């Protein structure tokens, strides 16, 4: 067993890069925080829905 062999076995890419670039760079999250539904529009149109309508209970809010 050679020392080089041990170094090979104990190669730890995560620790090396943590030192060099920081843990935050290594812990990846999704590049966008939206979900697929962002591409889907609402299946109601101006014609069948009055967007100015306020729910009948609106007055109770204030």
């Amino acid at each position: 067993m050679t020392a080089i062999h041990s170094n090979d076995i104990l190669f730890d890419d995560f620790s090396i890069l943590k030192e060099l670039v920081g843990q935050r760079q290594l812990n990846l999250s999704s590049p966008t925080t939206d979900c697929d539904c962002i591409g889907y529009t609402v299946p109601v149109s101006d014609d069948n829905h009055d967007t100015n309508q306020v729910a009948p209970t609106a007055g109770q809010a204030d």
Partner: protein
Amino acid sequence: MTTTIPIKSPQLLVRPIDEKHFYVVNCSFPNSLRILNRAQYRILAAIDNQTPVAALGDKLAIEADVLEQFLEILSQTEIIQFDDQFSKPQKPGRLQSLNFWVHTTNRCNLSCGYCYISTLNSTGGMVEATQKQLLHKLVQTVTQRKISHIKLRLAGGEPLSQFKAWQAFIPEAKRILSELGCSLEFSFITNLTILTDEILAFSKEYRIGYGVSLDGLDADHDATRKFRSGAGSFHMIDRNLRTLLQHHIPVSTNTVITNANLAGLPHLTRYLIDLDIPFRYSIVKGQAIDAELLETHLSESYALMKDAIQEGWSFSRRHQFCDLKPNELGFQTCASGFSGGAIYVDGTVNYCHVHFGDPTQLAHTIFDDTLDLVDMIEQGSHYEDMKSTDCQSCRYKAVCTSGCPVYRLNGKDPQCSLYHRFIPLIYDLQARERLKLLQDYTMI
């Protein structure tokens, strides 16, 4: 330690990167990808979930303490464990953040002609009384539930046609919630055909992000996103994307792949790589798509991404495929039913915005003062846990989480088989990116 038996995670993916390097990832443990050299790969391959550490060392002719140290490294991200207790992404016990889609208007300037400036602050959007009630519900929910973060995605129609209506709301709501210890974040889900200096300055000041719908490059985009005059909108989006990037405003694009635009996918990919913008490709739901062509053009696109990685392009920070979460993993696909939902222009609260206006769906209203927003989520529809038995045993279940709950077929994402081909490819590209980083630092 020498008598203990190392057990591999049942969700491991182990693949070669080049002739000297491999990678391993536990698809159920966040950020677990590791680059392996040949010696390490040999050890991992020899773990058979039966042989104790000492016997493994003898078999491989490796000193016990070196082997033990290596196994310790692998166990940090549960590539292996010394018992078979592997963790799974779990629903957190306490809700800390909320995420709502807010439907600001049904109106879209793309069907209203070029005179979009005149539509700013036009009617047809959420009225002030509804906005006020929304803020009231946010305050009530934050106070009662000790929520520390809320994201509102302002969508439509075209939310930027309603900019004036939200210009006062955003700073006020941020200030009021911040006094309660809750950060409030906004983004516009927009076609990006409206971007004035005022909107730009405001977005910068309040750090508003942009999710931009892009159907393709040039003619591919213009084929579906036209003004009423017939003119395409791509040239405006291209200009406005560059403006947002120049001003360091967080922006990403979203492309829904359909039969109409899939041939243009490689060109679009090249464009998005060159722009260095985060981009999402998702596959049309509820509509047929040519599976063979899809695979061909997606493969071509990923080949371009592979080349770009070698040039230093950051794949893992720039590209997202569908709702897949290869790194942070998850217990469910989106916030709906757990920490989020959709609020319609009149204050109706639904599970998802695709349910707006559907009388068969359970709905609440923000004008109901007996329930806070979390009650409404809890007492609303719940599609998120309807998953197939195949999904329970799938290696990629924490990456895919069975796809969008509203569009599942028999409890599975309709693109299941495509995911089985492309999830490994996504990890391959992440591994290449990691290897390139190590090589750039001459660490390997």
